[in-house]
């Protein structure tokens, strides 16, 4: 720790020119990023963007085709065992052990880390309480609802008291209540100084949880920044959506005033960036039908950068 003290203080993970190819298909194409200690770092992108491939390389599940990853200043290729002892991973698939009860899932998992029994018991009890699972301790995993199972997955990922927690789509398929409970717990963990890497499809989630994020597509990183700076830079602060407008006139108007816009089959999306004068002109001239004035969101950035066509 000593020699790399300065480095560790700033970055917990460093990925350099990371690449992954499967049978001639490039899943990850030379991406580089760093994750700083104590932050929540988001990996966003449509399906097939290379998020999960990247995550799997980070924790040494799959070896990179090219490039290097260092966590805590250690190389994942040679020191994966030391690294995995210090990270917690909540995988995208449910990998809970269905042959075991809720409590056993935590205790047996603790065994894989060789955590002493008394400490494992202590942590398991804490985690059951923290994720409101204490009433389910003897339940079989197969009997758990999606939300409960995800809470248990997260509890299990914390059994080794990790410094870095990797969450691969932690809230996909959850009901709003479960999702909010999970967010709340993540916030609490953040205040305890944990570092997070998060992949998600929910832009609202990313905007709320992530300090910094990258948007990936087709194996490459398109942009990197804080949610606010990305919104500001790529779509401006405000958006006007106009459903089935009188197209020619609006197009001419936007071009002449040099306002950014996207044209969809049924509506225009106008990146107005809080320009009050433009807004008034549009309101007067083009809002005979349905018009929506709203703040720009990360979702606008995401769709603008990765396109709107379906991926699968």
């Amino acid at each position, binding site marked *: 720790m000593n020699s790399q003290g300065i480095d560790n203080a700033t970055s917990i993970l460093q990925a350099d020119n990371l690449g992954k190819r499967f049978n001639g298909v490039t899943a990850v194409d030379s991406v580089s990023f760093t994750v700083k200690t104590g932050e929540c770092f988001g990996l966003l992108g449509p399906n097939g963007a290379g998020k999960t491939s990247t995550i799997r390389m980070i924790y040494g599940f799959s*070896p990179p085709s090219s490039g290097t990853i260092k966590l805590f200043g250690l190389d994942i290729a040679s020191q994966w065992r030391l690294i*995995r002892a210090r990270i917690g991973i909540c995988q995208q698939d449910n990998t809970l052990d269905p042959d075991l009860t809720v409590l056993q899932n935590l205790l047996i998992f603790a065994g894989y880390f060789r955590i002493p029994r008394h400490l494992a018991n202590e942590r398991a009890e804490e985690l059951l309480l923290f994720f409101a699972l204490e009433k389910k301790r003897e339940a079989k995993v197969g009997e758990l609802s999606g939300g409960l199972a995800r809470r248990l997955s997260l509890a299990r990922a914390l059994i080794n008291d990790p410094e870095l927690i990797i969450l691969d789509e932690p809230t996909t398929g959850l009901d709003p209540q479960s999702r909010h409970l999970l967010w709340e717990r993540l916030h609490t963990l953040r205040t305890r100084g944990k570092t997070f890497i998060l992949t998600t499809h929910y832009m609202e989630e990313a905007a709320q949880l992530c300090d910094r994020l990258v948007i990936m597509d087709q194996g490459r990183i398109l942009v990197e920044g804080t949610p606010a700076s990305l919104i500001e830079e790529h779509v401006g602060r405000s958006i006007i959506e106009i459903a089935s407008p009188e197209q020619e006139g609006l197009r001419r108007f936007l071009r002449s005033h040099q306002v950014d816009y996207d044209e969809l089959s049924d509506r225009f999306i106008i990146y107005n960036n809080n320009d009050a004068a433009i807004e008034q002109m549009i309101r007067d001239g083009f809002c005979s039908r349905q018009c929506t004035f709203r703040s720009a969101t990360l979702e606008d950035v995401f769709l603008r950068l990765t396109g709107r066509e379906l991926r699968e």
Partner: protein
Amino acid sequence: MTFGFFTNLSWRFLTVWRRNLVVYRKIWKVNFLVPLLEPAFYILAFGLGFQGLIEGLSYAGQSMAYTQFMAPALIAISIMYNSFFETTYASFVRMYYQKTFDGMMATPLSLEEIIVAEIVWSATKATGAALIMTVVLGLLGFVIFPQGLLILPLAFLGGMAFGAVGMFFTGFTPSIDMFNLPIFLFITPMFLFSGTFFPTSGLPAWAQHAACIFPLYHLVELSRFCCLGLVETNPLISLAYLFSFALVFLVFGLMAMRRRLIK
């Protein structure tokens, strides 16, 4: 990466073995019944039903009752089934449907440790079954003691051999139904032609040689050596064969699983 599996192995594999034990303890009462009752059924069926038809059976130069000849083979067959089915069907379910291995790979466990633990666990199950069967057959007078207790280390070795070859098949079977193939082409012929239900000395020479390739043949021979004190082969050669078979397929099994799971 080629021989990474030796550097990736540590005693940590016992934590995965323990996981299987914890799961097994919930269902042992039912599983216990199979090795307890199976030999009794076979001895009853073959002893009462078959014995009158078969006379003048001789093994290793000694004439004996048919049940006496068959009993040690029952233990060997049980060792084979217990370990082979564990690392094929049971391991496949854990790997493919339950994603248990994926979960383990998020911890400081290596794939090699997980796979070795599965094979050692299958050998453990085989040993447990062999123990129960030896006791039952011993009570029925088919095992000499204390030599019969040598069955236990033998069962573990045999379990490692069949567990490893089972894991090798698991390494590349596309779906769980496809295990029918190695069972039909590999396990069933062995079950029938390894000197289990009739001495191989009654077979034509080529078939006798062919039987020597079967690991079950050597396991049956050694099992007879433990139970009866009689053997037709050289027990050291049989032991060496089983040991080599176990080692070779342990390596093949690890390679196949690495190819399958590390992507």
